[in-house]
């Protein structure tokens, strides 16, 4: 059993079962007229709130919203796909910068050092190139170039009478 003080702290459970377990509270109310009266008053208030019905959007609500969207700067209105592509720009810039810095560093190496570090320099360039290749746009362009190359070979093969 719970006492009146505990019961009144838990009245919300009676009105709104989502707030907790109300069994103990109900047991108390069955035996306490004062708390039962207070609970009835709270329940009446809770139920009365239902009399305030909601509103529907005005006829111009949706149109107004899309007008506001159309007034956004173009870059903000860009489709999510395009915006996602833009996210590659910093990566591509970083890769290009890496290449430039790498090239610049190599050009400043002493002539003797160049020979000694040629293998390391080649490895560095290869890594930098691979980083660039990771960029999908460049990959796509390379695929396009390959396709053009194939087409060119095919056309030149046709002209020379070669097949497939």
């Amino acid at each position: 059993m719970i006492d009146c003080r505990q019961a009144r702290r838990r009245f919300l459970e009676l009105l709104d079962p989502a707030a907790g377990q109300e069994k103990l509270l109900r047991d108390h109310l069955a035996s306490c007229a004062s708390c039962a009266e207070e609970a009835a008053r709270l329940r009446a208030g809770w139920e009365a709130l239902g009399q305030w019905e909601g509103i529907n959007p005005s006829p111009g609500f949706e149109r107004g919203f899309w007008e506001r969207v159309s007034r956004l700067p173009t870059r903000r209105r860009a489709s999510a796909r395009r915006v996602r592509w833009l996210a590659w720009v910093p990566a591509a810039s970083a890769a290009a910068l890496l290449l430039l810095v790498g090239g610049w560093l190599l050009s400043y190496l002493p002539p003797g050092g160049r020979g000694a570090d040629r293998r390391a320099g080649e490895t560095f360039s290869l890594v930098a190139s691979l980083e660039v290749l990771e960029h999908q746009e460049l990959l796509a362009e390379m695929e396009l170039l390959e396709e053009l190359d194939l087409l060119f070979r095919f056309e030149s093969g046709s002209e020379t009478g070669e097949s497939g």
Partner: protein
Amino acid sequence: MDPDAQRMLQFQRGDPSAFEALFEKYRRPILNFCYRFLGDAHEAEDIAQETFLQVYQAAPGYRPLTKFSTWLYTIAKNRCLNRLRSLRREEPAALFHTGEEEDREPAEPAASLPDPEQALGQKEMTRIVREAVANLPAGLRLALVLRRYHDLPYAEIAQVTGCSLNAVKLRVHRANRILARRLAPYLAREPKRNLE
């Protein structure tokens, strides 16, 4: 995953119909949340549009860290609070309470409430309820509106409001206690069906 969050991710991948579906689903709930929180239909429409606009603009960086509805109601709540603050600076009596008076319980019912002795029609009772809600401090009103009218679970209200679970329950309880006291004179004259 939350299906609405999935829709948002679809929109992020470039499917505009996913956003349209979210807009269609939530436009009325968000409008009514703003309406009951601000107390003005015109302001509510403006804020609801701003809320969806923010969602639209946030799509590229969206990450489903919480339920979509939690995120949406949080945006709407922040927009409403900002509007209340700016309106209060311009006109102190404008719209509803802003929340600076957070946990104080107003001692007297709003002066605009009619004499309980007068016969009350449905429309008048609606106005009384609306006025009574309007005079709640913002923190109590926010918790009450989200629970009573939008049926959000307490845990979700806690996320939207940034309060603990117990604090949310306490706020809803206190709001209801204030309202019950204010509405009691009018409810005594209401037909019994409203008490069940």
